[in-house]
């Protein structure tokens, strides 16, 4: 059986490598223009085909990269502790990997074929950039495969020379990680390309590989893969646990489930930090990309993510708490569950709070806007960082309590040590909350920096806590042995749920990574011009992710089923078969229950994703940018813009007859209306002096377009003329006619309107008695007071105002007759009118 698989896999793999290499060579030799950019996949379309295949490939790849890592670690633990059980478990892990490798390769090959055939242009470009790595990659793959099989088949032969065997395992992981790093260089390159020039030509392959997001991707995926591998193994163990027939079998799978889950949660707790770094690098590469990812149409994706991660955290905690029931002495800690669950739930609430709320109009009015003044603040980065860090701390505390379950410390300084530990937890929480709250009072760039303090305080707390813990419980008194297999049955559902949820989450995150590029194959370099270039809404995405998850589960079940063939007999031999009432359920029933649980979870996620805002990111319209010299079409277009926009022409000149003539055919009419006049001149004249050639039946109501309020400049008027000519006539305006910079935004000319009314002011000047003493024309002789005929030139507004309000302060030499105080005789309006009038007297 095994050998068959081995041969089969090698065959598929060889074909894959050959196929991978040949088209690249042939493509590389042909010219760009001969390449068809896209081909259509039947029925479901190219994008969906590639999407499904890529995601399933990725899930399996994550599994086969993650599992060997902890397999080797478990084997090492087995060597150190000399516990055969560890060795047995490590071997079982690898057996799962072995099966998965074949499927990974098949889907990898499928993905490559799909890309070559469906997206040849994109594939050609990418292989052109990464030609060098494409030779390394298959070699690495050979290494990985060889090591894996060697590792597996030499397990029993090398049982006496464990160090050699372990070395093979480590080599396997080195190959595995190298493969991931290589593949990540491609994926991170299409997100944040570097090492290329503006035309997209390769400058430096090393820069292309080590682009902005490469290392964060590596770390994020490394942790994610370990975590995902652990979750799947735990789910597998849960499945086996429920179907166990013997005590020993049950104990074994209980233990395996626990280990898998522990690995999963350890990786999981460090994932937010890696995710944070990745996001930071994305922002550093392009804030645009960052906004798309976090703030734009993908923002709701993070609410779904928060929901899912909250569920995983709660399920994991629940598993630990239930696990305490198989530990004698752990009842002591049961009383803390309610506090822990409250803390996690509260953090969950905060974390899943959307920034933008779905509200009816009335609700929005009640809130005074679309953000809630109280809850809205929870939707921001600071609050969420707090929540996730505290959730991690709480989960850590759960784990600690679980580990302590059956131990009583014998060291003398236990009280002090424990107090220090408590202090660590509280001070870390304090730091997290302090910076979370403080974050609201500083600007964004500082706030983002705070998360570093929060993360490091949590990490510091966890690490130093663990160190103290080790010393505290060294040589601790053991109350009783852990009764593996005695965990309540329902705990296993947690493991199944975590596995399924994790898979769904992987799918969602895969979409997030791909979707942030929007309509680009390679962000900012190679545009997606296919029909599928738009990015689908979250509801549709969730449907696809659910399909992918189901497919993945089916494949995984297949692997589990296959792997069941190998070691079954051995384990049953020495164990006592449980009495029927205490036996686990049959495989069929477990499968059915698992299916119901999976369906419920997947259904819930899908339903929720379909209930939130459904927004597609459509392809932005190409901007017609007039570059360098304007063409005649540009001018006509600009003229049309002015006609309908700033010029306000279209308000009167309607097609259906407005207050001005219908200009539908004006280009033609301008050519014929005044035979002795060129149409350009005729139109210019009509725009600047509208009353010159009135069309019969219309009044002289049009304001000259070159004067306020319209104030078009020469170039703009010519553009309007060009547009009008284009309406049924020949455009005679040439680009050279337009003065330089005519269309560049000019500073707004502020027309300072005189506040008062000059004519009223003049009237007042006579009526209120000013004219008795003051003259207001140059011809008039001086009266009792100074002649004001040019006062507007001589004095400013303040001087005039003051002279009226307080005449004594500004007495002009030679006139000693005091002017009476006029202020109280004038209303404010009259005062302004008078001032305006006087200002207008410029001689």
């Amino acid at each position, binding site marked *: 059986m095994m050998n068959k698989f081995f041969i089969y896999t090698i065959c598929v793999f060889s074909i894959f490598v050959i196929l991978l290499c040949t088209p690249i060579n042939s493509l590389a030799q042909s010219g760009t223009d001969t390449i068809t950019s896209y081909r259509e996949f039947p029925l479901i379309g190219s994008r969906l085909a590639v999407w499904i295949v890529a995601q399933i490939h990725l899930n399996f790849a994550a599994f086969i990269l993650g599992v060997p890592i902890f397999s080797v670690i478990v084997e090492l633990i087995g060597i150190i502790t000399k516990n055969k059980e560890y060795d047995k478990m490590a071997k079982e892990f690898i057996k799962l990997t072995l099966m998965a490798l074949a499927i990974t390769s098949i889907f990898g090959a499928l993905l490559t074929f799909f890309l070559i055939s469906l997206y040849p242009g994109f594939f050609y470009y990418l292989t052109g950039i990464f030609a060098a790595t494409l030779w390394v990659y298959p070699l690495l793959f050979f290494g990985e495969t060889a090591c894996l099989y060697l590792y597996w088949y030499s397990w029993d032969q090398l049982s006496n020379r464990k160090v050699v065997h372990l070395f093979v395992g480590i080599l396997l992981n080195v190959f595995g990680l190298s493969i991931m790093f290589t593949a990540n260089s491609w994926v991170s390159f299409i997100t944040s390309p570097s090492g290329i020039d503006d035309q997209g030509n390769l400058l430096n392959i090393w820069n292309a590989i080590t682009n902005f997001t490469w290392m964060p991707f590596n770390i994020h995926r490394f942790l994610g893969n370990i975590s995902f591998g652990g979750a799947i193994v735990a789910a597998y163990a849960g499945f086996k646990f429920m179907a166990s027939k013997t005590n020993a079998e049950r104990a074994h799978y209980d233990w395996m489930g626990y280990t898998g889950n522990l690995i999963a949660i350890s990786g999981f707790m460090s994932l937010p930090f890696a995710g944070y770094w990745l996001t930071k690098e994305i922002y550093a590469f392009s804030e645009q990309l960052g906004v798309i990812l976090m703030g734009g149409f993908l923002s709701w994706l993070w609410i779904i993510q928060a929901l899912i991660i909250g569920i995983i955290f709660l399920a994991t905690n629940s598993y630990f708490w239930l696990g305490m029931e198989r530990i004698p002495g752990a009842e002591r800690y049961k009383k803390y569950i309610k506090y822990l669950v409250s803390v996690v739930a509260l953090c969950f609430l905060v974390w899943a709070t959307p920034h933008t709320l779905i509200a009816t109009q009335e609700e929005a009015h009640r809130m005074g806007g679309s953000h809630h003044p109280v809850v809205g603040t929870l939707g921001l980065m600071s609050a969420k960082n707090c929540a996730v860090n505290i959730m991690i701390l709480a989960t850590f505390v759960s784990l600690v309590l679980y580990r302590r379950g059956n131990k009583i410390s014998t060291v003398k300084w236990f009280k002090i040590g424990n107090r220090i530990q408590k202090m660590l937890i509280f001070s870390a929480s304090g730091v997290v909350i302090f910076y979370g709250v403080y974050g609201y009072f500083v600007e964004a760039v500082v706030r983002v920096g705070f998360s570093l303090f929060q993360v490091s305080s949590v990490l510091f707390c966890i690490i130093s806590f663990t160190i103290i813990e080790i010393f505290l419980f060294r040589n601790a008194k053991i109350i009783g042995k852990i009764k593996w297999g005695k965990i309540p049955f329902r705990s296993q559902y947690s493991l199944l749920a975590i596995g399924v949820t994790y898979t769904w989450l992987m799918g969602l995150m895969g979409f997030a990574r791909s979707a942030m590029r929007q309509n680009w194959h390679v962000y900012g370099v190679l545009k997606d011009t296919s029909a599928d270039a738009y990015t689908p809404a979250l509801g549709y995405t969730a449907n696809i992710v659910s399909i992918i998850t189901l497919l993945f589960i089916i494949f995984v079940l297949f692997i589990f089923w296959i792997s069941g063939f190998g070691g079954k007999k051995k384990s049953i031999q020495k164990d006592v078969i449980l009495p029927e009432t205490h036996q686990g359920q049959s495989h069929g029933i477990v499968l059915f229950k698992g299916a119901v649980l999976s369906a419920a979870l997947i259904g819930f996620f899908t339903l929720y994703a379909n209930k939130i805002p459904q927004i597609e990111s459509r392809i932005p319209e190409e901007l017609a940018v007039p570059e360098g010299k304007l063409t005649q079409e540009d001018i006509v277009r600009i003229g049309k813009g002015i006609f309908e926009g700033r010029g306000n022409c279209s308000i009167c000149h309607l097609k259906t007859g407005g207050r001005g003539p219908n200009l539908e055919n004006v280009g033609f009419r301008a050519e014929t209306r005044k035979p002795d006049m060129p149409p350009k001149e005729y139109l210019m004249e009509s725009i600047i002096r509208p009353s010159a050639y009135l069309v019969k039946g219309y009044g002289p109501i049009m304001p000259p377009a070159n004067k306020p309020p319209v104030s078009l400049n020469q170039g703009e008027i010519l553009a309007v003329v060009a547009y009008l000519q284009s309406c049924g006539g020949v455009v005679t305006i040439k680009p050279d006619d337009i003065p330089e910079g005519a269309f560049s935004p000019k500073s707004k000319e502020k027309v300072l309107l005189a506040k008062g009314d000059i004519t009223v002011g003049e009237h007042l000047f006579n009526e209120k008695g000013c004219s008795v003493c003051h003259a207001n024309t140059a011809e008039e002789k001086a009266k009792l007071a100074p002649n004001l005929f040019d006062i507007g030139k001589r004095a400013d507004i303040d001087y005039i105002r003051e002279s009226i309000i307080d005449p004594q302060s500004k007495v002009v030499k030679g006139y000693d007759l005091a002017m009476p105080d006029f202020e109280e005789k004038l*209303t404010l309006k009259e005062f302004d009118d008078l001032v305006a009038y006087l200002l207008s007297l410029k001689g």
Partner: protein
Amino acid sequence: MGRKTSKSIIDGRNISIRFIMLLTLMIIVILLVEFLILQSLLAQGENLAPASSENIEAGKRIYMKKCQYCHGVDGEGDGPASAFLDPPPRDLTRARYKIISTGSGELPTDQDIFNVISNGIPDTSMPAWSSLKEKEKWQTVLYVKTLAERFDWYKQIKKVPEIVKIANPPHATKESIERGREIYMKKLECWKCHGESGRGDGPSAIKLTDEWEHPIKAANLTKPWKFKIGSAQKDIYRTIITGIAGTPMPAFLTGNTEEELWDLTNYVTSLGIKNRPQKTTVLRPLFIPGNLTEDLEDPLWNGIEAREFTLFGQILLAPKLYTPSINEIYVKSIYNDKEIAFLIEWDDANQSSPGTTEEGDVIYADALAIQFPSQIPETPESPRPFFLMGNPTLPVNLWLWNSDSNTFMEANAEGVNRKKFQSEKNSDIKGKVAYKQGQYKLLVKRNLTTSDKTDDIQMEYNKFIPIAFFVWDGHNGETESKMAVSTWHYLFLEKKETGRNVLYSILAILFTIIAEIIFVKRIRRNAISTQ
């Protein structure tokens, strides 16, 4: 699983009592906090800022940051925003205030200025400055006083403005209101400005200007929530006896007995709309079996609750309107299997028909439009036409009426300046309008569906149909894009699908019962197996 049911070690009851106590405590704490906040808000603290130069300086800084953009750097009411405001911002240099507790034309007390800053003025652009702290407000008061010299004069001659004392209002009896009406109509002739029904539509109202010669409107007495000086009985009484400085509203203290003035106060109070219609986002017409009335005064209308829709000035596209004179309309609506009818009421002090005023200002026609999208969007999330008369891809269907031709026309638009009337043959709406004592009543009616499926809105049941309203007041220079507009609201014609709902409810019952049976069976089986 197989464990036997153990007896509760901790007395559960104690826990729940503790829990309830905790909850009660929490509620008490919350109430206490809210109470304390409320207290501090309500506290009419004494002047927190003595008139020191530092405080005046602080007040100046606040003024320059918050006030000067309307009231002007020197307080002349000429800030950059002033040109767009109606009523214009107060000229603070003259110390002529409307909302004062002292006599007409007198200087205000500090508390008066403080109150205005704190509470704002209804129906104007003066907001309540809740963002300022109490002390800051008092500092602002100090600075504002330095803007007008009058305060200094008063200080020099040590004249302290006296607060007008008002006795407790007598009870508003029917007789008192009736006597008040006599005074309103005959003795003091208030109706000449405020109109017979109090809608500010009196014959003299149109030419009113204030001391600054800004045109000013007579108050619409049917909308007490817009009274700038307050709508409490005492506020109205004070306004009557002191008048409003700087406006044509005279003081009526002399020549009238106190009783007469209270009667008038009671009458003015009685003019206010009793139940101000609720604002809503969803207009739900009432289903009427049988024919829909075409009578504006049909008693049927009295039984239907009106809904208020708030309008704002069209300031998106030039030419803009910053100061619409009609800020709200009241809509009632009914429908049957075939038709739908809207009764729209709005106050407009002047019935306009195109022409010019004596001063030569152009008067346009009064008009109203109801706007629907030409096609109902599939879901509330689907794109809607631009609320301002649509866009080329998503046109709108307009139901128009104007006072010029007094006809009801249908139109389609793809933008503010892209309106196209439907031919008379295609126009399916009918309607009636009446103008009475400063109020328009307009009834418009159409079949739920028409033959013109592309241009006309086809009403569908149980769908959220976007609806918007536009109103033009011809006397306010409103025409074309100068108009009062609303954003999209919804019209919802409900058709009860009782059959379907009952079916689903029965299914729900069945499912619950099945779930119950499974649950009970399981529990029983487990119980037996553990015994």
